[in-house]
């Protein structure tokens, strides 16, 4: 008698497509929350995963984000078969301020909502913004009634960018980046690094709709696990986007030599006294902040990652008061974003290190439009996170440069984890990326030269007011308001 062997139950390995989905859904989980895995994955395998993820992301988002559909339609692109196919679909960074300026000037937030709706997968057609009379009011409405947390950056021409970030995207980004922020490649991982309770140091307004204010609230939720006593903000107030708008208007008017045409929002005028009082308290808050860092957080495990100018301001304050900090050695302190045009002394980094009581600041490169934060390795190179596909484009024509060897030109990225808005962005930065083999530090990820320059700045253009200038811009605006008659 023949016996039929019992069928063997065999686990099917997940398909590449399935793995790509996992990577998109949670880079942290995919890499088992390990930086060694994240930045040790073989390049060829990562390339395969990234292509799959890009294709999947496009499939989804071309159906959901009108502007992606439009671009794809214009270019005749129906699917992603090679990673280069993504390049014609990348958004210029100027996309986020491509609305008619009068919408903002005339406070037509319903029209701005219609404009914003084209750049998000979230349906905003039911949002009634006609009653909003301020930028903050509009953004509050979006945050309260939709899955979006639309964030702004402000510009010197008086134009604000609005990026329709989905809350879950923002959170995923912070959780994923935490892995590289709290772990060093090839080194043992301190307990609690992945999801332990951390004190968050936030050297700016506790909240607000600028990404560089808003991020604090996410850090409070994720790193400080929602605990107020673990979230240390320099100013307890919400930084005002309307004030930033006014400041940008003033700056643009000064450049034109004509302040008489600055449009002062009535709701800000009404808050004059309140804002003036906030200004008056700034010094007090600064000293209290310095004290809490130096005393209350002694020996505590902390997290602080912020652009250099505000960090420097805090450090200078603290050193002048004769204070310095002593945090637990498994803390993570770093900076990203450069000076953004603010005047930094030569030894700013040394002052910051001295005040914070650390050997050196970690350095990062990132932007508000995507979630990947590139960390500088011991060999001095910024490493691209594995859920970000980097490109170098010709600075003049935006033609894709070969993804081989060392390439210098305009940086562009694709973040395929983003669900709420399109993760393809062409930056205004000149970058040099090495696409070839592993870095001297051992990480297999593509890496960038630490020298990053804005193209506008190089050719004598741009004069950006950015998040790092926020307190000064706020001050300028409040001063103008209070003397406005």
């Amino acid at each position, binding site marked *: 008698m023949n016996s039929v062997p019992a069928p063997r139950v065999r686990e099917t390995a997940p398909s590449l497509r399935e793995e790509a989905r996992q990577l998109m859904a949670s880079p942290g989980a995919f890499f088992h929350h390990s930086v060694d895995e994240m930045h040790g994955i073989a390049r060829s395998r990562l390339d395969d995963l990234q292509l799959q993820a890009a294709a999947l992301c496009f499939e989804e988002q071309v159906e959901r984000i009108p*502007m992606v559909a*439009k*671009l794809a339609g*214009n270019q005749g692109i129906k699917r992603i078969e090679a990673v280069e196919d993504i390049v014609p679909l990348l*958004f*210029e*960074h*100027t*996309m986020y*301020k*491509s*609305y*008619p*300026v*009068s919408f903002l000037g005339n406070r037509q937030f319903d029209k701005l909502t219609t*404009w914003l709706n084209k750049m998000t997968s979230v349906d905003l057609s039911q949002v009634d913004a006609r009653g909003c009379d301020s930028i903050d009011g509009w953004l509050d409405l979006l945050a309260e009634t939709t899955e979006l947390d639309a964030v702004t950056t402000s510009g010197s*021409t*008086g*134009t604000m960018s609005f990026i329709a970030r989905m809350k879950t995207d923002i959170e995923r980004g912070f959780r994923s980046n935490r892995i590289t922020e709290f772990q060093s490649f090839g080194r043992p991982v301190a307990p609690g690094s992945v999801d332990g309770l951390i004190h968050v140091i936030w050297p700016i307004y506790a909240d607000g709709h600028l990404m560089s204010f808003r991020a604090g609230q996410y850090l409070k939720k994720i790193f400080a696990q929602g605990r107020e006593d673990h979230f240390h903000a320099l100013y307890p107030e919400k930084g005002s986007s309307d004030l930033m708008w006014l400041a940008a208007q003033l700056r643009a008017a000064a450049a*034109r*030599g*004509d302040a008489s045409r600055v449009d002062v929002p009535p709701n800000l005028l009404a808050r004059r006294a309140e804002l003036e009082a906030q200004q008056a308290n700034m010094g007090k808050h600064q000293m209290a902040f310095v004290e809490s860092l130096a005393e209350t957080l002694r020996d505590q495990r902390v997290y602080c990652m912020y652009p250099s100018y505000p960090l420097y301001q805090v450090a200078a304050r603290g050193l002048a008061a004769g204070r310095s900090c002593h945090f637990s050695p498994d803390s993570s302190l770093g900076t990203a974003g450069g000076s953004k045009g603010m005047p930094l002394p030569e030894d700013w980094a040394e002052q910051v290190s001295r005040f914070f009581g650390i050997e050196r600041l970690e350095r990062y490169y990132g932007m508000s439009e995507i979630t990947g934060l590139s960390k500088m390795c011991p060999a001095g190179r910024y490493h691209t996170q594995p859920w970000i596909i980097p490109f170098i484009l010709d*600075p*003049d*024509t*935006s033609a894709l440069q070969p993804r081989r060897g060392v390439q210098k030109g*305009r940086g562009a990225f694709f973040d395929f984890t983003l669900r709420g808005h399109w993760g393809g962005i*062409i930056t*205004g930065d000149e970058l040099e990326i090495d696409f070839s083999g592993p870095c001297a530090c051992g990480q297999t990820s593509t890496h960038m030269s630490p020298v990053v320059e804005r*193209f*506008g700045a*190089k*050719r004598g*253009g*741009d004069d950006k007011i950015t998040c790092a200038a926020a307190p000064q811009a706020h001050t300028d605006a409040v001063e103008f308001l209070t003397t406005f008659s």
Partner: protein
Amino acid sequence: MANPIASLIIRGRIIEDDLVEFGGRGGALQFRAPDPHKYAAQLPVASPAALADLYDLRFDDILDYLAELGARLDIDRNAYLQEARELTYQTAPTTRPIVDTFYRGISSLFRRERVRAIAEHAIGIRYLEGWVEQAPDEGVRGFVRAFGARTLHVIAGNSPTVAAETVIRNAMTRSDCIIKLPSNDPFTAIAIAKTMCDFAPHHPLTRHCALGYWRGGDTEVEGLIYQPHHIEKIIAWGGHNSVKHVTRYIQPGLELISLDPKYSISIVGPEALADEKSLREVGLRIAIDVGVVNQVGCVNARVVYVLTDGSDEQLRRVNTLGQYTYEEMVGLPTSVSTKPKRYDPQLRSHVESIRLQDDYFNVIGGQGGEGCVIVSQLPEPVDFSTSLADRTANIVPVSSLEDIVRRIDAHTQTVGVYPEELKERLLNVAPLYGAQRLVSLGHALNHPPWLPHDSLELDRRLCKWIVNEVAPPVTELSFAASRPGATVIPGTKYPFTIEAYAVDA
């Protein structure tokens, strides 16, 4: 191969020793020039009295010199100019055919009739030649003469004609000039000066011209030269960047004439939309004012306002106007307009972003970096309108003149208008907001040189207007002894002068 030499020309002498390297950053021209620190002291004229030889010349002698110089500045025969042109191709913001057009035009700037016309209409030749009686008075007679000044010119390098105009102005006004050369084109002025040295090295007009290159902000050089005892006026082109090094030296005795960068606009009345013929004609006129010399001039239009009744039909026609403007612009002859050398990437980023926002903006052309026409669908210019360049125009439909004039300010130089009747209506209104020059649409690029520039009478301003007052003789005088304790001066036309002491006949 060694970098080209930007010679120092000091009053008839060509200097090419003690060379140091300049330039090279960010793609800028690299050249060698005599160390300005070694020669700075020789740049200013020895003393004000040295200008006396200019007053041995009659105006006709000046015209003769300039005519001769102009003839020798024929690009086809002047090796210095050819070399300058070759070197300028690299840094000029425009393309070769347009650069060629500029250089071909240099010679004719020096024509006798032209210079005479400028001198006559802008200044009045008789003021240059002698003392002209003003507003005759029965008593004291007043005479005015326009004298030359010792002037420093900080010139711009994006058009070779500026160097030529500077030499002409200097000669015409019997002034003495030190020309600080721009790093993006030091060679055109040098070519002109070398030609002067060739045919008339000892002529007063050659000897009252010095030019050279030093880095703007070089305090060792500027601190020495920019003093009232060396120069009386500074004229600076190019706005803030050229002026910022200069302002610290301004003091009584040193006058600064600053020409800031301007932008220009066009205004079109609804007549343009009436029919196909008008649309075509106005499209061409706009294309000319926008596209000629690739929009690098301050006179070139950037924003074009079109008055409409706000209807969809008229908006459709404005879009058609945009299409025709684009077609005409890319069809302009290459001697005056070409695809830009390099379409500014920042601008490109802005344009590509709004191209996708087709509810609000209709972007016509531009995919190949050739320039484009943006038709706003709402009555507002694009947010980046002040950085429009490289043959990029923004046509904006508006419903009232008020919408337009409130956007005019002191930086608005040329306003090209169609039709003529609309210009009439704007004549006494636009200047109140800051506009400086109204022209018929299509004529922005023609600036008669004897008319004011940027609302200034530049040529008059470069002169010193000196006064001679001649009092009639006084025969009999009364002296103090005859006026003991006098507290009041008797009635007289000139109580503060000797007239008050004339004894009436």
